[in-house]
């Protein structure tokens, strides 16, 4: 086995077992790990020590850009480039510009949330070593996995394996890079 390892993965049957195992791994000092579950398990991200609030901010700023873009587009068209006198109303008749500004805000913010989520997650990603794990196709169906990665400073092939076996895992296996 000269192939470099991505990590060691343990399989669980319930989200509660996975949560307990993730918490124990954190207590044992592991930091580089990831958990896989067929649906979002509340508290799992915290349990593996992961927190990220960039998506809301990306969405917010995308929305702000959308609002500015939408309003300035209308300002440029209606005031600067193509002023039309409609019944003597001001060129900058801003209340009439609100609906379109609102729509562009929502449009940009939605793209911000969508693209932001994908980009921060590193998707689309054609290859990831964790798919080499045996039975990993069950992670999108009915099984729960915890993978302690080889990049972890505490990672040790034998010890980590032993540790994961002690967390109530149904199966522990090595994941090749």
């Amino acid at each position, binding site marked *: 086995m000269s192939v470099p390892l991505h990590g060691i993965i343990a399989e669980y049957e319930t989200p509660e077992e996975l949560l307990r195992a993730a918490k124990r791994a954190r207590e044992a000092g592991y930091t580089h790990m990831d958990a896989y579950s067929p649906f979002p398990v509340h508290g799992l991200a915290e349990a593996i020590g992961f927190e990220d609030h960039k998506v809301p901010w990306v969405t917010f700023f995308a929305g702000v850009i959308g609002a500015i873009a939408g309003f300035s587009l209308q300002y440029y*068209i*209606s005031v600067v480039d*193509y002023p039309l006198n409609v019944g003597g109303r001001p060129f900058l008749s801003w209340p*009439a510009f609100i609906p379109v500004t609102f729509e562009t805000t929502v449009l940009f*913010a939605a793209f911000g*949330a969508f693209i932001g989520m994908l980009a*921060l997650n590193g998707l*689309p990603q054609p290859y990831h070593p964790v798919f080499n794990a045996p039975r990993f196709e069950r992670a999108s*169906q*009915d099984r729960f996995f915890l993978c302690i990665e080889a990049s972890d400073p505490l990672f040790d092939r034998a010890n980590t394996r032993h540790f994961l076996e002690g967390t109530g895992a149904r199966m522990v296996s090595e994941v090749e890079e």
Partner: protein
Amino acid sequence: MQEVAQRETGALIEGKHTYESITHKIASVAMGYRHPIAWYIVTAIAAAGVFMLITAIAWLLLRGVGIWGINQPVGWGFAIINFVWWIGIGHAGTLISAILLLLRQQWRTSINRFAEAMTIFAVMCAGMFPLLHVGRPWVAYWLLPIPNWTGAWPQFRSPLIWDVFAVTTYFTVSLLFWFTGLIPDFATLRDRAKKRISQIIYGVLAMGWRNSAKHWHRYESAYLLLAGLSTPLVVSVHSIVSLDFAVSLLPGWHTTIFPPYFVAGAIYSGFAMVLTLVIPIRAWYKMQDVLTIKHLDWMAKIMLATGLIVFYGYIMEIFTALYSGHSMETFLVKNRFFGPYAPFFWALLVCNGLIPQVLWSPKVRQNVALLFVISLIVNVGMWLERFVIVVTSLHRDFLPSSWGMYYPTIWDVMLYAGTIGFFTFMMFLFVRFVPMISIFEMRDLLHQTDRHRQAPAGAPATPVATTEVSS
């Protein structure tokens, strides 16, 4: 309190289900499933409708809008009636997926994917009508603020241009929301696929999703944000559609009640369409255990509630017109009651005002066949509503010399029926190739209601409580 919650949600998934069984149940329909004969029959008829649509559009492009029944003074006709009708139908999808998500209504899980698909296809149908109605669809890009050789720009003080922005934004955001919801399910299909071609297609669509807790963490936040964005969006879209009418000076259109009354009408007709589609599909694909009577019952309740708001709108329209003392407004009401299109108006009141009142009875709400019939009646009623709004206001102009009548031609009818065919065709393809119920959310629901557990001896009995504390 906990017990009440358990009992209420308990009915959302019936029978004994595990993560695997529920995944299999939904995913297998999209892959290697023997589809019921009804699927082939309906899809074939719908495909014929698509050909009819293509024919109607081709002839329209060759000959122009003169083939339609529109004239002076009724310049809007079927095109705008159908546009408003379809857009309205789309609204239930967003309501179910976004607003019910924000309100943490778990029962949305079985129907949101389906309703979102309905939104997308309904908005496609809706979009066709104004595009074709402009007469020269090949220059429809003039509606968008694109610099072009004419040097002219759209007029941003007009609700018609707001409409362009509202509908395109609505379509795009609905598509993003739908696709975001689908990513984890595409991953499930990818992992279950046996055939190489399915593995590749679902693999590409899943984009390498690997169910990592880090992914889920950002995913949930993005999904919630999209729901939060869609909620005001959906209200804005039909409000803006109603402003197409309300900003004009025509009696019967120039009313401040239009935005809320249109939004309520949209949700009302949308729920009717969800019921129309869900009831047969649920039976054909034997989804009764995940799309339970409880779901139908609650959809019927929302239909009843929004129907009452719509009916209130009708009464207020009449009251405002009479109370205003304005001769044109009073005339319009009389014309609606007794004019040449009076049968449509009275049929509308029967369909939208009278018949839905039977939904007060739980027995009716839980009678699937009856509910199906009522949903069809509501669909017809909402179409009649748009007919009455568009045609009765237009056909009696301010001067009797410019009065006229509107009669749709065969091309109007073919185009309209063609979009129904297109819509059905797309919905049935969707059922065939895409999981029609959100699988990962069903697994989550199963986990929360905790009915899948075979309760192994000695296992802690309150796993629900643990997750609630940690969340």
